[in-house]
């Protein structure tokens, strides 16, 4: 029976991909850092293992996250993944149960109908045949949706679909051919022998009525085997390699491995785990507002995987983090892009074929030579303070925010020192976003020195960009607070008395404060305390970027204006009295993009402060009289 030649394309493909996956995983494992290796080993024999199994079932098979985004898209992915999985599992059981011997080779289960054409006449076997037919129909329904999606992406809530390379196209064609060819092959065989379930049996009988079914069947079995074999052989060089790699990624992530700030085996696993599904493309504001469709994370990851020159793609991103939120595979897209920015230009010569596809491929970590130097900065003198207020560069361009913060802190009786009143030094995050970490370190050291020397317990900043870098990249003893958090604290401890403003306002989550630092509730609590806060269409973790982001070095001001207008339009759809934000950069960007008044959260609170009691003339006259009388 195994003498059938047509099973060999499938067999070779299957053994190739199995061996390749094992070898590749071993190489990745070996190049992990020692700490990560230990994490993975511990994770494999503990709770993370069970979590991973659960996640693989929920995400890799059922595609729960995609379901949440769009049910039709979710069904499409689920029917292909879960349907194929069930077909393999039940096909193996069927072959094991009804075949001549137990523990058959995989080819025996895959081509079961060819080897057992009469199978399924009665009893349990016929139930099984109907079930297998149902599974095939289930997959075919998903395939139909996939074909429709390729031509009408809008039907599944996708604005754009990913453009593919030619290897991807061949693999996609062979994937699409697998299931129709199986259907036809089984149908012809069933047509000859009068067997089969509701799908293959009926279709087979219909086809056999006017076609020479016995002659046709082997051709379709060949096609079935060839398309499977082609698919398996192309797997490592196409996006479909994500199927095996995603399993590895889930194990690694659940064991506690993270991207960190250097290129590692984990980064490489992530680039291969991307399925180019294009969900990142349809949420990207660069695409929907500015019409830029070539730099989204799917293309960035694809460029990384194929070792292309992606310097322009890498730089042209707002780093807003919306794609990170929606990625169904959970790839850390932002950190990967920063690693690539840090790496700088690639060597002029591309890697040779053998290095690219050979098993020893490993990217060199190229450190940029420093382009900037801040040796001119003079260390500041020691000045003690309990609370330090750092406005930040951007806030100095919105002086009203500084005035408001001063009023609030004075009103609450906070004794603070204004750290950059005379103009401070940049926090370093803009340099980090441009991939110049080493240079940023100089600024970080300068600022850290001032903060350490002051002995401050609390560092309040008005800029979310500074806030994020203070929290993540500075080593400080002081507690870092954004002013929205600080104002919330002042309200909660009762040191700030505020009136209520009868205004309808909406709140915009700045990227670095919301998604970047997870501060969603404090600003909302503050706003609700002084005004009527209305919900907006896209908020919290899916909040829109204002377009002014310092994350993008190359975006032109025209495109930025388009993004700002689109975001401001969405935010002010309910015609609020005021658009509130918590970032000076967002405030400045939105102010140019909308007619609605744009204020910082501190300005709103400052307006709600009780008016200082003004001395009336009579009282001051009385005082004068009193002073004169005392003098006498």
């Amino acid at each position, binding site marked *: 029976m195994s003498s059938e030649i047509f099973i060999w394309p499938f067999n070779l493909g299957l053994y190739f991909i199995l061996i390749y996956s094992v070898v590749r995983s071993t190489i990745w494992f070996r190049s992990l850092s020692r700490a990560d290796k230990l994490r993975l080993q511990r994770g494999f024999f503990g709770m993370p293992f069970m979590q991973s199994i659960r996640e693989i079932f929920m995400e890799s098979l059922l595609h729960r996250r995609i379901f949440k985004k769009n049910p039709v898209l979710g069904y499409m992915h689920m029917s292909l993944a879960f349907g194929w999985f069930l077909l393999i599992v039940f096909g193996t059981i069927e072959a094991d149960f009804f075949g001549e011997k137990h523990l058959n080779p995989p080819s025996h289960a895959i081509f079961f109908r060819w080897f057992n054409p009469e199978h399924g006449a009665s009893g349990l076997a016929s139930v099984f045949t109907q079930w297998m037919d149902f599974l095939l129909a289930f997959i075919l329904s998903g395939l139909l949706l996939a074909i429709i999606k390729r031509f009408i992406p809008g039907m599944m809530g996708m604005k754009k679909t990913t453009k593919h390379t030619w290897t991807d196209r061949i693999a996609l064609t062979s994937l699409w051919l697998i299931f129709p060819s199986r259907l036809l092959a089984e149908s012809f065989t069933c047509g000859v022998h009068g067997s089969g379930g509701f799908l293959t049996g009926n279709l087979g009988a219909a086809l056999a009525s006017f076609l020479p079914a016995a002659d046709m069947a082997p051709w379709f079995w060949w096609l079935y085997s060839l398309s499977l074999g082609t698919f398996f052989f192309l797997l490592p060089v196409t996006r479909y390699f994500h199927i095996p790699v995603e399993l590895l990624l889930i194990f690694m992530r659940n064991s506690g491995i993270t991207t960190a700030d250097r290129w590692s085996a984990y980064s490489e696993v992530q680039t291969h785990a991307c399925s180019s599904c294009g969900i990142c493309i349809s949420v990207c504001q660069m695409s929907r507002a500015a019409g830029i469709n070539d730099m989204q994370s799917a293309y960035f990851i694809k460029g990384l995987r194929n070792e292309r020159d992606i310097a322009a793609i890498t730089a042209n991103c707002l780093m807003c983090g919306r794609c990170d939120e929606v990625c169904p595979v959970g790839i850390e897209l932002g950190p990967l892009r920063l690693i690539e920015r840090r790496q700088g230009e690639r060597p002029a010569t591309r890697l040779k074929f053998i290095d690219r596809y050979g098993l020893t491929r490993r990217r060199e970590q190229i450190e940029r030579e420093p*382009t900037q130097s801040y040796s001119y900065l003079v260390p500041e003198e020691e000045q003690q303070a309990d609370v330090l207020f750092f406005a930040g560069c*951007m806030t*100095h361009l919105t002086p009203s925010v500084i005035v408001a913060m001063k009023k609030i802190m004075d009103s609450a009786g906070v004794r603070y020192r204004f750290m950059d009143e005379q103009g401070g030094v940049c926090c370093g995050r803009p*340099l980090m976003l*441009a991939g*110049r970490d080493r240079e940023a370190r100089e600024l970080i050291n300068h600022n850290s020195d001032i903060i350490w020397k002051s002995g401050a317990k609390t560092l309040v900043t008005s800029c979310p960009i500074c806030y994020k870098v203070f929290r993540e990249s500075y080593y400080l003893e002081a507690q870092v607070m954004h002013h929205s958090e600080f104002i919330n604290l002042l309200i909660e401890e009762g040191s700030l008395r505020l009136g209520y403003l009868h205004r309808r306002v909406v709140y915009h989550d700045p990227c670095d404060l919301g998604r970047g630092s997870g501060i969603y509730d404090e600003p909302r609590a503050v706003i609700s305390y002084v005004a009527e806060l209305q919900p907006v269409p896209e908020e919290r973790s899916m909040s829109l970027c204002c377009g002014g982001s310092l994350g993008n*070095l190359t975006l032109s*001001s025209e495109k930025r204006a388009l993004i700002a207008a689109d975001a401001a339009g969405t935010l002010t759809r309910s015609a609020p009295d005021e658009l509130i934000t918590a970032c000076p950069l967002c405030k400045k960007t939105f102010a140019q993009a909308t007619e609605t008044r744009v204020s910082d959260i501190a300005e709103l609170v400052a307006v709600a402060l009780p008016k200082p009691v003004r001395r009336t003339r009579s009282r001051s006259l009385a005082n004068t009289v009193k002073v004169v009388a005392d003098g006498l």
Partner: protein
Amino acid sequence: MSEQKANRFGFAINRSRAINYDTSDRKVREYVTLREPSFRLCFACGGCTAACTTGQHASFNLRRMNTYIRRGEIDNLREEVTRCMLCGKCLLVCPRGVNTRNVVAVTAEALRKLDRNEL
């Protein structure tokens, strides 16, 4: 010393500076204009320089830097460009929408390439 002497009367005679546009090094200017076309929009208002964070700590002048790029004064440019902190304030004040941060980044890149003879 000589400067002090010359300054005795409250003014000094500037060193003679002739900018010969025919012989000046255009490579950096061409590279910057190609990579950041908005560079050409600058009308030298000096808003960027007034807003500059670095300008408060050191001699850094984006407007002057633009002049250096246009004139091909590479040596002066080399000193100037290393001081910027890329904080982006200039970006927000620019009335012409010049992508100033990228002008600095691209200039630094151009100088690096110039040193490697890649330009």
